[in-house]
């Protein structure tokens, strides 16, 4: 009988352990609520509103990341400049900072004590307890995932393709639109998925800046603390289903991933 290499046996055991560690709590959470609980939960307009709030604000954060993060990611991927390492570290900061700290930091800017907060207030922009505030927080936490993914994607495209495009008459913007972006499209989609995923799961920063309008994680937390596990689980299950559907849709929309399957 063929002997299994101990290293591969160890790797297989680790894989089994890790997959179990991730899947088991999720399966248990999905399995525990009854169909009636799930149906009742879905019929609750507050639940649907909270899930929509999470999805829409996260999607908006991903779109904002796309608009502002893409040129930034291009610059980081293609240019060397003084302070680049520092800027890259700054981009990674939201990943490392504890989430409530992010909420407090943005709150300190948005309040009337700060000139930015005063200007926003005069312009009629309400940050605290508003959709705007939620989007700001979610963009803050999601941006690093988008920028790093797109930057890596652009770095993987040979710069010679851009050089040739320039030599053929295209300007920097034309080259970006005709060569770089079409080739980095997959990274852009993956970046948006990661950004959305990170934003949907955000709780700590959102709860400080905007308890209401309620996002799904805040609602799950509220129902858990007020009514217990049974009342919060169905909302969590619906959030998982909706997010899973959205991510599958985005993957399907990505032409590269479809071509591979």
């Amino acid at each position, binding site marked *: 009988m063929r002997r299994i290499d101990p290293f591969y046996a160890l790797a297989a055991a680790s894989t089994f352990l890790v997959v179990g560690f991730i899947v088991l709590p999720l399966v248990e959470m999905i399995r525990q609520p009854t169909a009636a609980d799930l149906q009742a939960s879905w019929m609750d307009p507050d639940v649907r509103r909270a899930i929509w709030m999470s999805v829409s604000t996260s999607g908006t954060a991903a779109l904002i990341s796309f608009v502002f993060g893409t040129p930034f990611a291009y610059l980081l991927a293609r240019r060397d400049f003084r302070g680049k390492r520092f800027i890259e570290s700054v981009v990674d900061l939201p990943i490392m900072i504890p989430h409530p700290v992010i909420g407090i930091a943005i709150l300190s800017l948005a309040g009337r004590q700060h000139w930015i907060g005063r200007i926003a207030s005069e312009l009629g922009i309400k940050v605290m307890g508003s959709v705007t505030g939620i989007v700001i927080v979610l963009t803050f936490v999601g941006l690093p995932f988008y920028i790093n993914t797109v930057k890596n994607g652009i770095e993987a495209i040979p710069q*010679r393709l851009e*050089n*040739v495009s*320039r*030599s*053929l*008459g*295209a300007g920097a913007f034309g080259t970006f639109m*005709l060569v770089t972006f*079409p080739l980095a499209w997959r990274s852009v989609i993956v970046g948006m998925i990661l950004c959305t995923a990170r934003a949907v799961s955000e709780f700590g920063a959102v709860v400080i800046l905007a308890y209401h309008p309620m996002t799904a994680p805040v609602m799950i937390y509220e129902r858990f603390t007020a009514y217990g596990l049974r009342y919060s689980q169905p909302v969590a299950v619906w959030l998982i289903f909706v997010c899973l559907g959205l991510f599958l849709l985005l993957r399907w929309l990505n032409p590269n991933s479809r071509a591979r399957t």
Partner: protein
Amino acid sequence: MIAIDDLAIRLPGFTMEGISFRVEVGEFFILLGPTGSGKTLILESIAGMVPISSGRIIIGGRDVTNLPPERRAIGIVYQDQALFPHLSVSQNIRYGLRYRPWGADREKKLAALIQLLGLESLLDRGVCNLSGGERQRVALARALATAPDILLLDEPLSALDPSFREEIRHLLKGLHRETGITVLMVTHDFPEAHFLAARTAVIGNGRIEQVGSVPEVFNRPISPTVAAFVGMKNIFQASFDQGVARAGPMTLSLTGFCDPAWGYLAVRPEDVCVYGVSSGKNDGVHCFPGRVTRIDHQGAFCDVLVHSDGLLWQTILPTGRLIKEDIAEGGQVWLQVLPEKIHVM
């Protein structure tokens, strides 16, 4: 016409200075240099893709030093072709046409170019499944479709299989003859320069070592770097006086004028004669005793290293002669270096 005037490129860990040369209208000029010598950097600086520290770049009479790449009217072909993978062959070729003014006969010229490069049957195909030769032909068509003032070629043959290399080498020569375009090509392969170019410049040590016609550079290299590059493998430091050169303990007769300012002598491996002791071909004139230290078999010929008077000589011999004259590793031989075969610099 391309005129490069006192170009300097300074990058972290790499500097090139005093780069000057001219490529005449319709000329096929080759910039030769070993790998890592910076020849691609020069090409990319001419194309406007690498910032220069100082100097001037003139293309077709226009000072393009401060112009972006898209305004320099150049075509560039890289050794890896750099075809756009998300576009078809036809879309690759037509890529630059949107940025050039429409001419009444544009489609006619494009069709002629496609025919010249034999790409008619490939137009609708993706570029990822093309052979090396086909990819190179598409890259050439793409670069030429916009009718650039000059064509820059970055080692277009080095990434190809030998069969495709031969095909593209002939194609480049024919293309240059047909279109009459000014071509600047960089390569590390001297035989390519022999085949394609009339004039060449050799780059080494961060500067241009020699500019001249290909036969001139081949026959009269002016520095040890150039001599080594054109295949003179026996390069020795020497002192020169009254018609003789002294390299170590060896004294070699020279023909013609002798300048004490010279510092090196060089001899091609094929110009060093080696005779087996059994051959009896020692007439005493320019002959030195030696010992074979290594023989590398290369098929019909062998590289033979001979140690003589403290100098190590690289020679080439037909394999048959090794057997006939009983030349073997460790054996004694006679080494002959004729004065007319010695290059001095």
